[in-house]
């Protein structure tokens, strides 16, 4: 058994050495990214000092034109929205931001559900690279699993499945590509229009609420209150019709409880049925984003004035 244990130990030592070496290299290149979504996350967490911050998922990322906000409000703006990442991610990022500075306005684009969904927890992997350097985010990151802190003993693990994304984010070509599509301060426009007629979609009906999600969502609202940052919670436009949506109702109720304005654009006549403003049923294209951002700018101006 000793012979076996010694071979196992040698194997383990080799793995640990390689893990440290490869992990450190990945860390270096990850934080050296100058474009792409990894860079946008790092910038949101560690660098931005924009007056207006937009939080949300892909819908936020593609709907809020930061250039337009800057031009029309004279306030700097950054869009922290990231594809497929919902309230856990947004709250963790907010915690890091508030540790560094206090923005003048926050817009939270609400998407998702308060029901339990394992993939929402799995997606917290996008924050693993920040676990060591950002103590304030740890309680959210550790929701991913009870063994997460042990898994993070590995240096490679935080960069799992990111090798090619890290490589691309270091290429000058990717930076140029992002500029060419009109990306600006986190905002990434979508191009193309939605074809065909709109459908009636079966949206969320009553479900059991995931306590973690509800708690973290409330934490987001309370953090902004605590730091006296005006907050707007928005449900941005969709190009489908629906009878009722339990998640939107819940969001509205929680916002009302904390006296936070909640503006729901999901049935707005300015957008619904206008396929030329949409890339797909849940995402506006650049033209749609421009029109929508105009409306948000109005709300921001009112909000900032109100809070002066």
């Amino acid at each position: 058994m000793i012979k076996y244990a010694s071979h196992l130990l040698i194997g383990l030592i080799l793995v640990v050495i390689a893990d440290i070496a490869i992990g450190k290299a990945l860390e270096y290149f990850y934080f050296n990214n100058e474009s792409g979504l990894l860079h946008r996350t790092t910038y949101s967490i560690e660098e931005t000092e924009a007056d207006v911050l937009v939080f949300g998922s892909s819908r936020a990322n593609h709907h809020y034109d930061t250039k337009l906000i800057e031009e029309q409000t004279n306030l700097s703006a950054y869009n922290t929205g990231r594809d497929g990442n919902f309230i856990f991610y947004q709250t963790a990022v907010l915690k890091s931001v508030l540790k560094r500075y206090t923005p003048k306005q926050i817009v939270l684009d609400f998407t998702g559900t308060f029901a339990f969904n394992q993939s929402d927890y799995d997606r917290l992997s996008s924050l693993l690279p920040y676990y060591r350097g950002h103590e304030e985010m740890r309680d959210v990151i550790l929701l991913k699993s009870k063994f997460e802190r042990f898994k993070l003993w590995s240096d490679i693990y935080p960069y799992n499945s990111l090798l090619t994304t890290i490589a691309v984010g270091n290429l000058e070509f990717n930076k140029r590509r992002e500029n060419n599509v009109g990306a600006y301060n986190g905002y990434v426009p979508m191009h193309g229009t939605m074809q065909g007629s709109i459908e009636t979609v079966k949206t969320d009906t009553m479900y059991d609420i995931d306590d973690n999600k509800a708690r973290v969502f409330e934490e987001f609202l309370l953090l902004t209150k605590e730091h006296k940052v005006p907050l707007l919670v928005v449900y941005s436009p969709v190009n489908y019709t629906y009878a009722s949506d339990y998640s939107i109702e819940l969001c509205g109720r929680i916002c009302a409880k904390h006296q936070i304005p909640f503006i729901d654009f999901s049935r707005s006549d300015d957008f619904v049925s206008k396929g030329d403003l949409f890339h797909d049923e849940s995402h506006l294209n650049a033209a749609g984003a421009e029109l929508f951002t105009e409306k948000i700018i109005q709300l921001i101006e009112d909000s900032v004035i109100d809070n002066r």
Partner: protein
Amino acid sequence: MLFNSFTYLLFFPLVCIFYFVLPHRMRWVFLLLTSYFFYMNWEPIYALLIGSSTVITYACAYFMDSLRVDRKRKTLLILCIVLNFGILFLFKYYNFITDSAFDLLTYLGLRVDFPKFSLLLPVGISFYTFQAVGYAVDVYKKRLPHEKHFGKYALFVSFFPQLVAGPIERATSLLPQFHKVIRFDYGRAIDGTKLIIWGYFMKVVVADRLSIYVDSVYNNPEMHSSISLVVATIFFAFQIYCDFGGYSSIAIGCAKILGFDLMTNFRRPYFAQTCGEFWHRWHISLSTWFKDYVYIPMGGSRVSTSRRYLNLMVAFLVSGLWHGANWTFVIWGGLNGLFQVLLIVFKLNAPKSAAKWATGLRILTTFVLINFTWIFFRANSLTDATVIIKRIATQSGSFFIGDNAGFIYSLLGISILLAKDLYDELNLNLPIAEHTYSKYLWYTSLTLMILLFGVFDGSEFIYFQF
């Protein structure tokens, strides 16, 4: 408890340490308790089902062995089979049969409402039921005497490495091993560790990665073009191989470290030259189970030609149904049976020696045919399967890649898998590869690839649902 969970990574080393520290006479108790603990991590109440199956088969075999009248022994065997398959039927097939009967009767203009059961399918029920029934049949056929030690028999039914997804062991092979005094064996432990690492690579790096693409395409087949559907089908072929083969590899490796030999379950199936050979390489423990307990008792090949074809079709149709209560699985089994029959009718079995190009062509043809059957296996419904086949034949269009990085990792995983399988298939045994340093390098690299490219969302193994 999932093999690919962090809990199992803590559980197994602890089991090993305690197992080898304990005196021999206490080890079976320890393994029995850990096996039930392992199973009860899913749904504790369903441990009662394993317990019931254990008690039923043990009691039937016990009395069967003490009876001399063949008729009574046969009655006991039938009782044992009916009770075991009755439980399986209730949990797995009842709703399927009643739904199908309802559809048929409605089609005929009759309306009969059947009571519904909304029961969760117990994990691994098909596996341990088959293993237990196999034991009862073996005792009936006097291939082995009944096991006197109830505890060790209970361990045979519930042995945790192979409890929920096989390999489906034979009593003649596994039961005697629980009576042997086992000492820690360095060579076996090393072999077991290698199998475990390779199994994790297959599951976490290849199968779970491929599943992301396959699910995207197969869950919305009407949105995808021919090329995307073909790629998704090929990906699924490797996904299911790596998912199930990976599980088997980890199971065999874990058992090996503990000192037990489980049967080989997969032998590089996609290098098969005929569909017949494929079933000698794929899920070997199940295909031999069907051969021994269904095909041969029906007469096997020692009957008229037409009866032989019928026997083959029945064995494969039942095998299809074993996989799941859905017509897609029945058709999948039927197609595989049909391929076996056609092989015999047209005498297409592979010659022992052939030109390399002919061998390659046979492997490719077999791969294409098996992929065709996988469409039915993976499709969510028969309607989806027909949509997929229709679109593959007619629908040109753009190629869906999904996540670029994920697609690259998928191809990387398949390449490494095929390279390793090819190396083993050709039995190359290159001196450089056999060197200790090379082995360290290989298994360290596999571990690093698991960390770098593995999918760590703790997804279940496909075969758990069977």
